[in-house]
C-alpha cells in the first residue's frame, strides 16, 4: 500500500497546485487524502488511484476553505468549478522539490518538508526517524511551509540546494521503521528522471555506491568495520553496477562536479576485489580534482589518507599538517597514519583522543576499540 501510494504524492500535489491551490494548504489536503486511502482502499481498490486521490484531496481542500472562511463562499465556489476538469498528466515533482528545498529554509526544515511533500511520509514517520516528538515535527513542517509561502518560489529553483537536502537525508541512514538512505535514493532516482544535470547523476551514483557497501559496514556485534577490513563479498553487486553506469553517463557530459568526483572515488573502492588491490594513485588524482572543485578542510583530510597510501605514511602526515586541528575525524586519520608509520603508542593515544571527540556513538565505540587494539598491554602484542 505504502509503496503504491507514496510515488503518487508529488503528482497529486502538483495537480492541486496547478489548479490554483495554495501549496501549504494543498500539502495538508494530500496528507488527509492519503489517510483516507489507507482506510478505504483495502475494501475496494480504485481503478485510477491518482484520480481518486486528486478528487478526495480536492474535496479536503474545499472543506478546509469552507471551515476556515465560511463567509467567503465565492472563493469556495471557484475551487468547486476548477475541480471538474480531467487530471493532467504533467509531472511537477521538480518544481515541488525546488519549493521544499527553498534556500530560505534551514536544512532540517527542508529535509522534513521534502520527506512529507515529495516522499509522502507521514509526520509521525519523519518524527520517528529524527527522534523528536511528532508535535515538534508537525510544527517544523508547518513553519517551513509558512516560510516558503512568504518567500515564494521563482521559476528557477536551486538545484544545488535540492541535492544537498537529498544527500543529508541519505546520510541519516536508518534508525527505525523508515530507511532514510533508501528513501533518499528513491527521491534522487526520481530527480534523475526529471533533470539531465550531471551532478544529479553524480549524487545518485555516490548514494548507490555507498549503499552497496552497507551490509559490510557493521559486524555481527553491530560494530563499525572500516572500508579496508570489510568483507567485500557482502557488497551489493547490482547496486555497484548501477552506480558505475549512472556515473559514467554523468561523466560523459564532461561537466565535472563535487558529487561526480566523490562517486568516482567510491567507484574505485568498489572496483577493488581486496583492499590491497585499491587503485590509490587514481583515488589520489580524484581527491586532487575534488580539492580544486571544493577546497574544504574535510576534502584535504580525506586526501591525506590517499597520500598516505600512495607515498607512505610520512607523506600522509605531511599532507595532514595543513589540515586544521578542529576538523572532525582529523585525530582518527592522524592515528591511522601514525600506526602505518610504525608508531603504535602515538597511534593509540590519538585513537583515544579521537574517540573522546567523536560526535557519533558508533564511531566512538569503533575508535575506542582501535585504541585498545594498539594499547601497549593489549593481548597478543
Amino acid at each position, binding site marked *: 500500500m505504502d509503496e503504491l501510494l507514496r510515488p503518487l504524492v508529488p503528482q497529486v500535489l502538483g495537480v492541486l497546485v496547478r489548479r490554483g491551490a495554495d501549496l501549504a494548504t494543498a500539502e495538508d489536503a494530500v496528507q488527509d487524502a492519503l489517510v483516507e486511502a489507507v482506510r478505504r482502499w483495502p475494501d475496494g481498490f480504485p481503478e485510477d488511484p491518482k484520480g481518486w486521490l486528486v478528487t478526495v484531496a480536492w474535496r479536503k481542500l474545499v472543506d478546509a476553505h469552507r471551515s476556515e472562511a465560511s463567509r467567503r463562499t465565492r472563493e469556495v465556489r471557484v475551487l468547486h468549478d476548477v475541480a471538474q476538469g480531467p487530471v493532467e498528466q504533467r509531472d511537477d515533482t521538480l518544481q515541488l522539490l525546488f519549493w521544499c528545498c527553498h534556500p530560505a529554509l534551514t536544512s532540517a526544515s527542508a529535509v522534513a518538508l521534502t520527506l512529507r511533500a515529495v516522499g509522502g511520509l507521514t509526520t509521525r514517520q519523519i518524527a520517528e526517524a529524527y527522534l523528536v516528538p511528532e*508535535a515538534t515535527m508537525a510544527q517544523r513542517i508547518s513553519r517551513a511551509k509558512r516560510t516558503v509561502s512568504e518567500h515564494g518560489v521563482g521559476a528557477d529553483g536551486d538545484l544545488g540546494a535540492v541535492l544537498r537536502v537529498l544527500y543529508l537525508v541519505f546520510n541519516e541512514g536508518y*534508525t527505525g521503521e523508515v530507511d532514510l538512505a533508501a528513501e533518499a535514493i528513491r527521491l534522487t532516482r526520481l530527480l534523475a528522471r526529471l533533470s539531465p544535470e550531471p551532478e544529479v547523476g553524480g549524487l545518485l551514483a555516490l548514494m548507490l555506491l555507498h549503499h552497496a557497501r552497507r551490509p559490510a559496514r557493521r559486524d555481527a556485534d553491530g560494530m563499525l568495520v572500516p572500508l579496508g577490513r570489510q568483507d567485500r563479498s557482502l557488497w551489493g553487486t547490482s547496486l555497484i553496477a548501477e552506480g558505475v553506469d549512472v556515473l559514467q553517463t554523468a561523466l560523459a557530459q564532461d561537466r565535472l562536479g563535487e558529487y561526480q568526483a566523490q562517486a568516482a572515488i567510491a567507484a574505485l573502492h568498489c572496483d577493488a576485489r581486496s583492499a590491497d588491490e585499491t587503485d590509490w594513485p587514481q583515488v589520489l588524482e580524484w581527491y586532487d580534482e575534488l580539492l580544486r572543485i571544493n577546497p574544504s578542510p574535510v576534502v584535504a583530510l580525506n586526501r591525506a589518507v590517499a597520500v598516505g597510501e600512495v607515498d607512505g605514511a610520512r607523506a600522509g602526515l605531511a599532507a595532514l599538517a595543513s589540515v586544521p586541528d578542529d576538523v572532525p575525524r582529523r585525530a582518527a586519520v592522524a592515528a591511522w597514519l601514525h600506526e602505518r608509520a610504525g608508531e603504535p603508542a602515538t597511534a593509540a593515544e590519538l585513537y583515544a583522543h579521537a574517540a573522546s571527540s567523536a*560526535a557519533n556513538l558508533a564511531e566512538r565505540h569503533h575508535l575506542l576499540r582501535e585504541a585498545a587494539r594498539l594499547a601497549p598491554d593489549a593481548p597478543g602484542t
Partner: protein
Amino acid sequence: MAKFLLLKHYRGGPQQRPNARTPMEEWTPAEIAAHLRFMEDMADDLRRRGEWVGGEALAPEGAFVRYDGEGRPPVTDGPFAETKDLIAGWMMIDVESLERAHETAAYLSSAPGPGGRPLEEWIEVRPFLEYTPPVVD
C-alpha cells in the same frame, strides 16, 4: 540538526551570579509564578519552532544505586548534602547549530527571579552523541 541537553543545576558549575543565589523558597509567590510562566512560554516557543524534544524538573533528593552481585539487592547510597554537583532539571532540544543551542541556553538563563530580574543562572549545555551510524565510509 543536533540534539543538546540543557541542564539547570541546584549546585555545581561556576559561581552563580547574585540574582541566582537566593533559593526559590525565599521568593515571593508572584516571583515564583512569573518564573514558572516564563518556563512554560519558553517550552511553547520551542515547540512552535520545531526544536522541542522534552524537559522535566528533578527533585533535589535522590540516591546513588549500584549492582552488588548475583542474588543480592541493589546497594543504595546518599543522598549527599555535600555533593558538589546537583541537577535541578533538564531540557532537550533539537537545533540547527551549537550557536542556536547556546542562544537557547542563554534565554533559559534569563528566566526572571527575585524582583523580576533575570537569574543569569549558569546552564550546562551538552551535545548528544549521534545515534545513527555513518552511512558513508
